[in-house]
């Protein structure tokens, strides 16, 4: 049986100051986040103690390797919805709380969008007139610089990492035909944009390895960072750096849901007869992205050539079979699983028949339809900067400027639920304990991170409450206690730590 697929998304947003193109991005990101935090009553700092981004899932630790960013002293806060809001590298980043289902993780990703929208509005009031901080939910500046939207999935530690790699890579190389966010042109060195008018993915141009620890250079399709933020004897946190930041609710939900389904099948040993191994995954990833007709094929190790759609179809057929044998209880509720399978089937059938019928569902199709329509209306050629501007502005987070918001996209979420998720944590994971403690006792919390909270009770030494199981600390476990206690001291006493 697969373990529950606790999951979440971290998004690095693009950031500029309109009216001040030379503004320092780190300062700007700090200003943006402080503008949000200053509108809240209290804030609590993030605690870095247990972080180890240099530990590799293949079983060795990296000493002083690049990409380790402990103790940055940059703006860094925990929100009452259990999320983390901070400056990472030179970007504002929102990491959603741990969620129990793909639809819940979608909800908290959208709550993150709402946070940055409020932050932009607050910052506007603080900046000189004529200047405005503008945030983009995309992954590239179109000049070869990329920034990530990382997914995280709880995986059973007993599954050998090599097995995860082997059975996941063909899925990862091909899932972009569904969940790519679309890009005008190419940033791959030596590949002229004139040769790639439009591609499926924002990120595919930037991947150079099949497996590795890096996230900023020589990016790998499978990232090996082994930092479980939980009991490392039982759990692995699969850190996925390949994906695009999506705006379409359908795209985000499918990205999380289908990946969780494939991981569950790997845990159950259900993909051993899949017999799909790409001869050159990194090249295939780019070839698939560069071909929005979806007609091209990629080479398999056994010499066959398959279309990305056929590879996705093979995964879907296994998933239907797996669901019949094992159910889909690992997705946290009764509804996500069957709905995801239906949507996976619908989308693959439509991609096979006529991708443009998915313009109301998928980011890359929606963007491509606008780009093509604009091109025809204005007789613009492929190099016209207005097409590149459409690509960027699709992701503009300002509601009045966002092109995405002008499209009649299918909705999954309710706006009222998104607004509530800006403040309230998901009830079904330890994020409930983190977020609720923060809301109730902000003055008594010295710091918090994914797997612990440090209480400052005034007289005693600081008290750390560990949360090593992402499924403990839920409303079911501690809701009654948290409602009953009158102080943090009483809470810590009752927890017996």
């Amino acid at each position, binding site marked *: 049986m697969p373990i529950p697929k606790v999951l979440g998304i971290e998004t*690095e947003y*693009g*950031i*500029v100051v309109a009216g001040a*193109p030379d503004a320092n*991005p780190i300062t700007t990101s700090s200003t943006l986040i402080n503008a949000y935090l200053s509108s809240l009553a209290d804030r609590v700092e993030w605690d870095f103690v247990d972080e180890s981004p240099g530990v590799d899932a293949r079983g060795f630790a990296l000493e002083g390797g690049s*990409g380790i960013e402990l103790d940055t002293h940059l703006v860094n806060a925990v929100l009452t919805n259990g999320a983390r809001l901070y400056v*990472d*590298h*030179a*970007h504002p980043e929102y990491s959603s709380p741990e969620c129990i289902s793909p639809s819940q993780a979608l909800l908290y990703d959208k709550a993150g969008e709402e946070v940055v929208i409020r932050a932009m509005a607050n910052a506007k009031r603080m900046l000189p007139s004529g200047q405005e901080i503008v945030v*983009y939910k995309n992954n*590239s*500046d*179109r*000049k070869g*610089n*990329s*920034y*990530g939207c*990382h997914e995280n999935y709880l995986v059973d530690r007993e599954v050998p990492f090599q097995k995860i790699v082997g059975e996941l890579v063909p899925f990862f190389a091909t899932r972009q035909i569904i969940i790519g966010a679309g890009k005008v042109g190419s940033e791959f060195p030596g590949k002229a944009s004139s040769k790639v008018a439009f591609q499926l993915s924002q990120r595919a141009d930037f991947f150079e390895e099949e497996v590795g620890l890096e*996230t*900023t250079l020589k990016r790998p399709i499978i990232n090996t960072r082994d930092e479980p933020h939980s009991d490392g004897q039982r759990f692995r946190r699969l850190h996925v*750096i390949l994906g695009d930041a999506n705006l379409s609710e359908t795209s985000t939900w499918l990205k999380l849901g289908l990946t969780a389904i494939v991981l569950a099948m790997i845990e159950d040993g259900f993909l051993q007869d899949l017999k799909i191994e790409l001869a050159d995954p990194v090249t295939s990833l780019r070839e698939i992205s560069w071909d929005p007709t979806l007609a091209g094929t990629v080479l398999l190790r056994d010499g066959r050539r398959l279309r990305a759609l056929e590879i996705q179809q093979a995964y879907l057929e296994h998933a239907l079979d797996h669901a019949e044998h094992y159910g889909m209880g690992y997705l946290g509720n009764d509804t996500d699983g069957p709905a995801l399978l239906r949507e996976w089937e619908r989308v693959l059938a439509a991609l096979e028949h006529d991708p443009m019928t998915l313009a109301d569902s998928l980011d890359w199709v929606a963007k491509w*339809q*606008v780009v093509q*329509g*604009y091109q025809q*209306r204005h007789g613009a050629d492929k190099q*016209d*900067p*207005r097409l*590149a*501007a*459409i690509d*960027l*502005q699709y992701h503009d987070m300002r509601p*009045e*400027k966002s*092109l995405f918001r*002008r*499209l*009649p996209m299918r909705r999954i979420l309710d706006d009222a639920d998104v607004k509530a998720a800006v403040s309230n944590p998901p009830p079904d994971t330890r994020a409930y304990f983190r977020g609720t403690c923060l809301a109730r006792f902000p003055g008594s919390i010295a710091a918090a991170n994914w797997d612990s909270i440090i209480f400052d009770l005034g007289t005693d030494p600081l008290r750390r409450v560990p949360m090593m199981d992402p499924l403990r600390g839920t409303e079911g476990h501690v809701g009654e206690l948290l409602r009953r206690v009158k102080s943090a001291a009483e809470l810590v006493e009752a927890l017996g730590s």
Partner: protein
Amino acid sequence: MAEREQVRKSSPNREEVTEEEVAPSAERSDQLKAELDDILDEIDEVLEDNAEEFVRNYVQKGGQ
């Protein structure tokens, strides 16, 4: 009783839905084109004025 009425009431609706689905695709495609035209009108209004400068000034360093 109420249930039976419900069934009777819903069947003509169901036929209507079916008819819509098999409607000539030219009509559906005209409808989509009109929708896209409206979207493009809005995009013409909201797209950054100086596209070239906007795209040039969008630079992001130091991401993962």
